[in-house]
């Protein structure tokens, strides 16, 4: 299987062309082909959430998505979250303030999930946040601080 196809991906507002085999996942396209390594690979099989990105505004596991499937859609990664002048997104700022991470490896996925969780209207209570953030594993155990950060960011965003 050496056939390569050229695809166009719109990532963080910029359209990029890349030539990949059809079997390349969106995650590997981001990390290996475009060197956008903010999106992390924790399992490559849809079980940890580290690879969470937004596709057309919804959270998606990029390890379970083929790059080709994302053609024509708007992809947002953690690199595209801060403002044009580098101002942190309220969720990012809250993660820093509440120390919602340690090693930082699950963090981009947590942040992308958190932004979506708030937008979906699932940050109404701590229990609801816990439930809707349970697809993102954190082995460092930052969960209580992630909940605090999302609770605070939700206030700022509303």
């Amino acid at each position, binding site marked *: 299987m050496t056939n390569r196809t050229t695809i166009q991906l719109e990532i963080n507002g910029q359209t990029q062309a890349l030539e990949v085999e059809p079997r*390349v996942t969106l995650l590997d396209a981001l990390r290996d082909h475009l060197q956008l390594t903010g999106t992390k690979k924790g399992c490559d099989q849809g079980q940890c959430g580290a690879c969470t990105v937004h596709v057309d505004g919804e959270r998606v596991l990029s390890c379970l998505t083929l790059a080709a499937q994302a053609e024509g859609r708007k992809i947002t990664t953690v690199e595209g979250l801060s403002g044009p002048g580098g101002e942190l997104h309220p969720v990012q700022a809250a993660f820093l303030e509440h120390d919602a991470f*340690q090693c930082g490896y699950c963090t981009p996925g947590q942040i992308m999930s958190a932004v979506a969780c708030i937008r979906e209207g699932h940050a109404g209570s701590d229990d609801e946040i816990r439930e809707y953030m349970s697809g993102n594993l954190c*082995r460092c*155990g930052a969960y209580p601080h992630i909940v605090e950060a999302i609770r605070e960011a939700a206030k700022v965003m509303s």
Partner: protein
Amino acid sequence: MTIVETRSKRGDASDGALGGRLSRVDGPAKITGEATYGLEYHPEGMVYAVLVQSTIASGRVRSIDATAAEAAPGVLLVMTPENALPIKSATDWLETPPSEAPYEPLAREVTFSGQHVAAVIAGTFEQATAAAALLKITYDETKAITSLDDPEAGIGIPIDQMTVEWGDAEAALATAPVRIEGEYRTPREYNVPIEPHGLIAEWKGDTLTVWEPSQWIDGMARTYAEWFGLPFENVRLVSPYIGGGFGSKALPLEHSAVAINAARMLGRPVKLAVTRPQTFTAFGGRPATRQTIALGATREGKLLSIVHRSANETSMKDIFVEPLGSVTSLMYETPNLSSRQNVVRVNTVKPGALRAPGENPSAFGIECAIDELAYKVGIDPLEIRLLNYAEQDPHAKKPWSTRRLREAYAAGAEAFGWSKRHPQPRSMREGNQLIGYGVAAGTYPVRRTPGEALVRILSDGTVEVASSSIDMGQGTYTILAQTAAEAIGVPVDAVRVKLGDSALPRAPVAGGSQLANLMTGAVHKAALAARDELIGLAINDPNSPFRNLQANTLVVEGGQIASPRDAGSGIAIAEVMQRIGRDRIEALRDTLPENLRNEKDHFRNFTTITTMRSPTEGDYSLHSWCVHFVEVRVDEDFGTVRVARMVSALDSGRLYNPKLAESQWKGGIIMGIGQALLEEGTIDSRHGRVMNNNLGDYLVPTNSDIPDLKVISVGIPDTNASVLGGKAVGELAIVGVAPAIANAVFHATGKRIRDMPITLEKLI
């Protein structure tokens, strides 16, 4: 090499001082995706390696047919023991001299299922993965011993160094008015850092660069140098960020040898990422353990004897000891004790360190047993702990440097509301939820290895700190910035910390919860030396603005130098540096004792653990302490257990940054909740395979498993333990969590579960 600039925009200036709640200085890089982890570099011409693992647990590889794989698109090399370039054996971390035999990271003899037997290297990750599936491997299979309980496993090998005995424990037990006995078991558990292991290796002539998450840059670089016959200086290991390790990223592993060798054979940079399922056998987690504990006591609950027999599984080729008597012989005062341990050979990967190796399962045993004794004699589980409180180290017979465990019991009980506990098991409920309160203590030793650091004051008044130590989330970047800022007298955001590169001054292993204490000590020393030189120059240099003051000394504060008599009118460090014409003032300092200040011992100190001092070397016994109070809710019909709330009080001495220390404590507690309720490597007893080798089946805690956690610091500075008064943090808090939960489950249900995890089928 990574440079992290401190940013303390939020919060007030006092946050930057040592002991302040400064936000993580490496935080902005991590939340924006800028932080580059080991597997995220992209040297020109990089190709991809994929490992192939054995499908039998015991036997030998008869043949590997690589015809199809080699013909697959993009394949550059199928590596087997037959065609791999030879690698030398290396000195190990205990400084055991290497064997003459070559080191073979790909196995011919298979001793566990999931052992690496081949590797495929191809132009892309997808090509390598596809070709790896085409290898045809045949084996001569022999019968495997799959677990500690395998009838063929036997009782194992006694480890005499683990024996601790005083008094006559067996006799005292036989005559004790009250006796209890139980067997406590923990299963195979895995570290599961969310960043999987792996590396990128690149050769340029006879220099090697490796980008790889590492808890011990200098130790691993030494092994790589010896494997490939290079001088140490020719190996550069870069590891600026580590996506979690919990003990598993400290030692060199087979897959690293494979990738470095492949890069050498192909003359191209090679990236090898261990897949998530492969991580379950590419290195070992905590071995399965069992302990028998017999306690003899008076009718009032005062201990008369502890008899402890234990065993952990190890691999067929290596001996790994999980010290199961470490807490048993430390926590309580008893006139008689006997503790012995065996290791049992099983067809498994060599077990490894997982957060608090030894203390963790050891505390599970003794902290459940003491709880059982409390119920047997009819006193409160907290009271029995105070009744048997060890006023000095019962084993080493030395005074504690600090032991704020009594304060921890008091503070924790108060905050938890322990007095509301009804003493009878199964007596508290809400609807069909049985409510249980449980308590257990924990401890972790203070380990000490000398450190080294470079501190530089630059002409613009900023400060650089450099060390090959690492930050995997413990907060090294942050607390070292705080240490240097305070020692020199500059704002914390004027400090840049560089870590994670073997080209920087040496550091010992980030393990045993020792790094923060030893590195703050080294940075403090180097920073004071740099500041003293700055003051000396400011007093004596002919061009210094302070030249005419005739001062004996000057003060440095907030980045300004001033006369002590006239502290208000300072001059910025940058201006003084420019006036005296210096572009830098630099101090490289180590905390080695005089007798180790020679090249050989210096190298040994940072690349082996032979200079690490035990917690009882010296006049005191040095340990951190903690206690956990837990409320569980058990569904009476379904047997499901939830931790409803927890309060933990901990004595880690002085905290350099409470915000980050609290995070680490909570992380340990959460891992303990997982251990108590979820985590268990399940092994197929026919093929010896880890059946749940993925994150969907090996369950670690998720956000919804974790309630609010309250942590209370009861520590005071302990300068016998470390220069700046801190004790162990990272590994402490997991110790005691699982027994506290097991004790709470007993209180809720009246069922004593002695083997972890506490899953619903054990309760219904």
